C-alpha cells in the first residue's frame, strides 16, 4: 500500500470512530495486538508493463491457457502471458486500431470488444497470434458526444450478448441517439432486443450463479450515490433520459419521462407508485464506499481467494479500491451488505478478472479522471496470503434486525454486548440534481444481541429499522476469540425487504445511548425532526457586502475547471486587504467546490473534509475549521456561484482547492496575496 492509500485508510478509520468516546465501551484491545492491515491478508503485486505500451485498460478476460487478453482505451488488444511468474510477463499485440475499447470478452477462440459504435468480433484465422478479421456483430448510432461510452459484451448462457450504452453528457445526462442509457441483448448474428432502461454510466455488469444480471451505476443526475441494481427485462433503473426511446418498437419499458416525478423523495418511496422503477439491491455511500463504481466480479474461485466464495467484488475507479458485497434474496427481492475490502491500487480500477490460480487481476486507467492511485494506467494482481482475516463475512436481514456472520469465532461476551454495535439508517434523494446529500438519517438502537454457540454469528435486534433504507452497521467493539478487532468494522446493508419469521424475545433491553447512534460525527436525528436551517456563513458571502457600499470589487476573478480535476487557473493575484469577487464556474461534469484556506493547509483541510464521511456532501465538504477562509458551496456540473470576501491582510500563498474527497490532492491553485 502506498502512503496515499494508507492515509485514506487512516482517515476512514478515524471517521468511523469519531462518534464513539473511548470510555463508552470498557474493553480495549490488549496493547500487544497490533491492528491488522489489509496487506496481511491480500497482497498487491504490480505487473511490469513494457515502456511505450500505454496500457489504459478498458477490458480484460482470462484465456483458457491462463493468459490475459486486455483491451485499452487506445484501441489495442494485448495478449499477456506468464502473468503469475516466475519471470516477466510477455506482451504480444493481438489487435489494434479500434475506437476506445472498454470491454473485452473471450468465447470459443474469438475475442469480442465494444468500440464506441460497434460490438466487434476479432478472429485470428491464420493462427499467427494476431487478429485478422474485425467483424461487426452489431453497431449503434452515436452523436459524437464524448460521454457515449459502450460496454460489453457479457455472454448469456444461450450465447447471446448483453451490452450497455452510457448516456451522453450535455451538462446533464442525455440520450442523444437511440438506446443510449439502455442494456441491449444482441444475438451472435446481430439481432438486437432492448432489455432495460434508466442507465446512466453502466461500466460494470455481470450475472450471478442464479443467472440474474446486475449492473453498477455511478453517482450523477437521478443517481444520489453509486449503486448496484438487479436488472430484469423491462426494468427502469432510474435515469429517465433513456425513456426517450421507450415508445420505440421492441421496447420492453413502457414508462415515459413524464411518469417520473422529480420530487427528491427517496427512490424506494417513488418506486412504490411508479411500477417498473427498480430500486437498487445495493447502495454504495458516496465518498466512503467509492465514487465511481466499475467492475462487478463474482467470487467463484472455490476458496482460492479466501473465505468469500459466492460474494461479489466491486471495483472503484476514483478511489482505486475494491469493495465486497454479499447479496441475498428476501421475498424475491435482491438486497445485501457492502463492506470495504482492499485499497491502495496504483490507478483507477475499471476491470477485474480471476487468474487461473484464483488471484484477482485489476486492470486500471485514470486518464482524464483522477484516481487516488496516481498512475495513468496499470495492471495489478491481488493474492490471498492464505491467512484468515477477521471480518464480517456477511450480514443478513432478520425480521427484527440483522444477523452478522463472522469469518472467525468472536469473543462471545463482547459480541453479546449491544454497546459493541451501532446502526444508523439513511437514504438519498431521487431527483434530477447531480448526486444527493444523505437524508433522513436516524439511529436504530440495538436492543439486544444473541451470539451463536460457535461464536460465528451475532443476531442483532434493533429498533427503527426502515425498509428502503441503507443501514450503516458498525461493530467496532467486537473482538475475535483471540482478542483481535475486525479488519473492517463497518458495512452498509441496503434493506429492500424485511423477511418474515420469528422475532427474538429480548429480555434485557438496554437503553440506547444517544451518542452511540451518531453517524460520522453528526448528531443523529429521528425522521420526524426538521432539518436544521442552514446558518449563513461569513466564509461564504454570496451577495456583495453592504459594507462595500457602492464600491466595486477591486478584483473580479473567474475560475472554471479543466478535465482531470484541475482549475483552469493555477494562480491569481490580489492585493492584501482588497475586495475580491470570485466566480467559480463549475463547467466540469462532476461536482466541485472552491475553498480558500490558510497557507500550507490544503491537504489538512481536504482530509478534514474527508472525515466528514457520509455527511460531507450535505455540508459541501467544507469542514468547520479556522483553516478555511472562504468557500463556495458544492456546485453541481454546469452551475456557478459568486462569493465576496476581503483578501487576507497578510501577504502569502493561500491555496484554493476543491475539498471533495480525493479531489483536493490534485485540484488546487494559489491565491497570491501581495502587499
Amino acid at each position: 500500500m502506498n502512503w496515499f492509500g494508507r492515509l485514506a485508510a487512516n482517515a476512514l478509520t478515524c471517521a468511523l470512530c469519531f462518534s464513539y468516546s473511548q470510555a463508552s465501551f470498557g474493553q480495549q484491545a490488549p496493547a500487544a495486538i497490533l491492528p491488522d492491515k489489509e496487506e496481511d491478508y491480500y497482497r498487491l503485486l504490480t505487473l511490469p508493463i513494457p515502456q511505450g505500451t500505454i496500457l489504459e485498460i478498458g477490458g480484460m478476460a482470462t484465456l483458457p491457457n491462463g493468459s490475459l487478453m486486455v483491451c485499452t482505451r487506445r484501441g489495442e488488444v494485448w495478449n499477456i502471458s506468464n502473468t503469475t511468474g516466475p519471470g516477466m510477463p510477455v506482451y504480444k499485440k493481438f489487435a489494434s486500431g479500434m475506437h476506445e475499447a472498454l470491454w473485452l470478452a473471450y468465447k470459443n477462440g474469438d475475442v469480442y470488444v465494444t468500440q464506441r459504435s460497434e460490438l466487434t468480433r476479432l478472429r485470428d484465422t491464420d493462427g499467427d497470434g494476431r487478429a485478422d478479421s474485425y467483424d461487426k456483430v452489431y453497431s449503434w448510432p452515436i452523436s459524437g458526444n464524448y460521454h457515449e461510452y459502450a460496454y460489453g459484451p457479457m455472454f448469456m448462457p444461450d450465447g447471446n450478448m448483453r451490452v450497455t450504452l452510457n448516456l451522453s453528457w450535455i451538462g446533464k445526462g442525455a440520450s442523444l441517439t437511440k438506446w443510449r442509457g439502455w442494456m441491449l441483448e444482441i444475438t451472435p448474428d446481430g439481432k438486437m432486443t432492448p432489455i432495460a432502461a434508466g442507465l446512466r454510466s453502466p461500466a460494470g455488469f455481470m450475472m450471478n450463479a442464479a443467472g440474474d444480471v446486475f449492473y453498477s451505476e455511478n453517482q450523477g443526475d437521478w443517481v444520489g450515490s453509486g449503486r448496484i441494481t438487479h436488472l430484469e427485462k423491462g426494468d427502469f433503473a432510474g435515469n429517465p433520459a433513456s425513456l426517450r426511446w421507450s415508445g420505440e418498437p421492441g421496447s420492453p419499458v413502457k414508462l415515459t419521462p413524464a411518469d417520473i416525478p422529480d420530487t427528491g423523495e427517496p427512490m424506494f418511496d417513488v418506486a412504490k407508485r411508479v411500477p417498473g422503477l427498480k430500486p437498487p439491491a445495493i447502495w454504495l455511500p458516496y465518498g466512503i464506499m467509492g465514487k465511481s463504481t466499475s467492475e462487478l466480479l463474482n467470487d467463484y474461485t472455490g476458496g482460492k481467494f479466501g473465505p468469500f466464495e459466492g460474494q461479489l467484488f466491486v471495483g472503484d475507479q476514483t478511489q482505486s479500491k475494491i469493495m465486497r458485497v454479499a447479496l441475498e434474496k428476501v421475498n424475491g427481492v435482491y438486497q445485501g451488505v457492502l463492506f470495504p475490502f482492499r485499497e491502495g491500487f496504483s490507478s483507477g480500477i475499471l476491470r477485474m478478472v480471476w487468474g487461473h490460480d484464483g488471484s484477482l487481476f485489476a486492470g486500471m486507467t485514470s486518464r482524464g479522471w483522477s484516481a487516488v492511485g496516481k498512475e495513468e494506467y496499470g495492471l495489478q494482481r491481488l493474492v490471498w496470503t492464505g491467512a484468515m482475516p477477521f471480518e464480517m463475512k456477511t450480514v443478513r436481514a432478520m425480521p427484527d434486525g440483522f444477523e452478522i456472520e463472522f469469518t472467525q469465532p468472536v469473543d462471545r461476551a463482547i459480541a453479546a454486548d449491544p454497546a459493541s454495535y451501532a446502526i444508523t439508517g439513511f437514504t438519498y434523494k431521487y431527483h434530477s440534481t447531480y448526486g444527493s446529500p444523505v437524508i433522513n438519517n436516524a439511529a436504530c438502537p440495538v436492543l439486544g444481541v444473541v451470539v451463536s454457540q460457535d461464536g460465528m454469528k451475532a443476531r442483532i435486534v434493533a429498533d427503527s429499522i426502515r425498509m428502503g433504507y441503507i443501514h450503516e452497521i458498525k461493530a467496532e467493539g467486537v473482538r475475535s476469540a483471540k482478542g483481535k478487532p475486525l479488519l473492517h468494522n463497518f458495512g452498509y446493508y441496503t434493506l429492500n425487504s424485511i423477511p418474515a419469521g420469528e422475532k427474538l424475545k429480548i429480555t434485557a433491553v438496554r437503553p440506547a445511548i444517544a451518542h452511540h447512534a451518531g453517524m460520522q460525527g453528526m448528531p443523529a436525528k429521528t425522521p420526524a425532526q426538521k432539518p436544521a436551517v442552514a446558518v449563513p456563513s461569513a466564509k461564504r458571502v454570496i451577495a456583495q457586502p453592504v459594507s462595500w457600499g457602492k464600491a466595486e470589487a477591486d478584483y473580479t476573478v473567474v475560475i472554471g475547471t479543466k478535465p482531470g480535476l484541475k482549475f483552469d487557473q493555477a494562480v491569481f493575484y490580489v492585493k492584501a486587504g482588497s475586495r475580491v469577487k470570485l466566480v467559480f464556474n463549475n463547467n466540469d461534469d462532476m461536482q466541485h467546490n472552491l475553498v480558500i484556506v490558510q497557507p500550507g493547509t490544503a491537504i489538512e483541510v481536504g482530509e478534514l473534509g474527508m472525515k466528514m464521511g457520509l455527511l460531507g456532501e450535505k455540508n459541501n465538504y467544507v469542514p468547520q475549521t479556522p483553516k478555511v477562509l472562504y468557500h463556495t458551496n458544492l456546485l453541481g456540473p454546469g452551475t456557478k456561484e459568486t462569493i465576496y470576501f476581503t483578501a487576507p491582510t497578510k501577504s502569502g500563498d493561500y491555496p484554493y482547492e476543491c475539498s471533495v474527497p480525493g479531489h483536493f490532492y490534485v485540484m488546487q491553485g494559489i491565491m497570491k496575496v501581495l502587499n
Partner: protein
Amino acid sequence: MKLFTFLLFFLLTATCAVAQQDAAYTPVLLTGPNSFKPLPANWKLVSEVFFNPLADGDPVLKNGTGVLVNIPAKNKKWNEGHLLTNMEHGDLDLDLDLMMAKGSNSGIYLQGRYEVRLSDSWGKQDPDYTDAGGIYKREANTEGAEGRPPAQNVSRAPGLWQHMQIVFRAPRFNAEGKKTENARLVKVIYNGVTIQENIELSGPTTGGIASDETAMAPLMFQGDHGQVALRNIRYRVPPANTEPVRRASAVVNPILVSPGVAPVVHRGFLNYNGKKLTAPVAVGYPQKVSYAYDLDKGRLLEVWRGDFLDATGMWYSRGEQQLAVALGSLIVLPGKPTLAFLPGKDSVWPDSNTAAYNYLGYDLLKDGSPVFKYQLGDAMIRETLTPDNSGKRFTHSISAEMAKEAKDLWFRVAEGSDIALQPGGLYAVNDKQYYIQLPEKVKPLIRKTAANTTEMLLPVTIKDQKGGVNYELVW
C-alpha cells in the same frame, strides 16, 4: 482553457487570417509588362501547361495568358534566365500555384537572395534540403550548411498544380546600415502543410542576385535549372503582427500516430467537410500516404501525403472531442459511396445507399492492409486501397460476389470541375489536382452531374457470380 477550445480558436484565427489575406493580396499581373523585369526568352506566357509525370518529353502548352512556364534552353548558362519582379520587397507574404516537370528543380528567391527550393520530389521518402520546400544550403562548398529539409515531403506528381505560401521577414539594419537581425522564413506552407517554421537565414543562398544583404530587393524565380510553371502569384506586405500568440496553458504534448513497418489502422472521429464523422477509419502507410474511409456509408473520404495522424484530441485527458486530425497534405474527395446500383446511365449517383448498404467488418491482409467488407443489395463487396512501394499512387479496387448476373453495378472513380485525358493516358481531375489511371481496355463513363461537375464511373460486370474492377489514384 481546454485543448480543443484552443485548437478551435487557433483554427478560427487561421481561417480569418486567410480571408483577410485574400482581401489584401495584390495579384502580380502576369500579362502586363509592369510586373517583371523584361521576360527572359526561356519564360513563356501560356494559358495551359502539362508535364507528363511518367515520361520525359516536352511540355504540352496552350497559347494564351495566365500561366508562366520556364523551358530552359538546351544550351542554358548558369545563373541566366531568372525571372525578377519589378516590385522590391522587405517583409513579404507570398502565395502561388506551381507545377513541376518530371525530374526538374527550381527555386523561389526571396529578395533575390534566400532560396526556398522547388523540386520534383514526388514519392521521395526522406527529403533533404534540395527537395521541394527545402531551404537550400548557405555556402557553395559546404555540404548542407544551414540547409533545412522540409518537415514532411508533401510533393505531388509532376503536371499537377501545387500550392505554396511563404511568410518572409527581411533582415533588419541600423542607421549605419549594419545588420541587426537576420532574415527569417517565418513559415513555408506547401500543399496546405507547414513544412518550415521560424528559420533564421544567416545570409543569402549562393546563386542569388547578390551576396550582400539589403532591406528591399526584388523577388526572383530561378530560371536556369529546370522546367516549372507558375500561376496566381500574389503577394502583400504582412501586417505587423502575424504570429499567433500561443497561450502557455494550452501547451499539451501531442500524441502522434505513425505507421512503423506496417500500416496503421485507426478508428476514431474525423472532421470531414466541417462535419464530425463518427465511423471513419484512417489508414496510414509506411510510404507516408494515408486515406480515410467512412464505414457508415462505404465511401472514400480523403487521401493524404505526409505524416499520419494527431490523436491528441482522442487520447489526451478524457479526449472530449474524440477527434483525430490528419497531419499530411490532404486531397478531400467528394465522399460519395464507392458503389451503387444505377437503373440507367442517366441515374443520379446517390449520396447514400441507405439500407441497401450493410457494413460487415474488415479483414487485414498479410501486409496489414484492411479489406472492407459489406453487403450492397444482393452483392457481397470487398474493397481495398493499397499504395505502391514509392507511395505515388493508391490502387482502389473492389470485388463483388452476387448470385445473379448484374450489369447495373457501378464504381464511382472521381468527380471534379473537369476530368481531362492527358497525353500519356492519365486523366487529370479537378484542374489537375490528381490523376486517375485506368487499367488497359477499361472504358469509363464520363458524364456531367446536376451540380455541373464531371464524374467518372466504371461498370462492374458480374459474371459467374463474380466481378471486380480497380483504378489508380495517382498524385
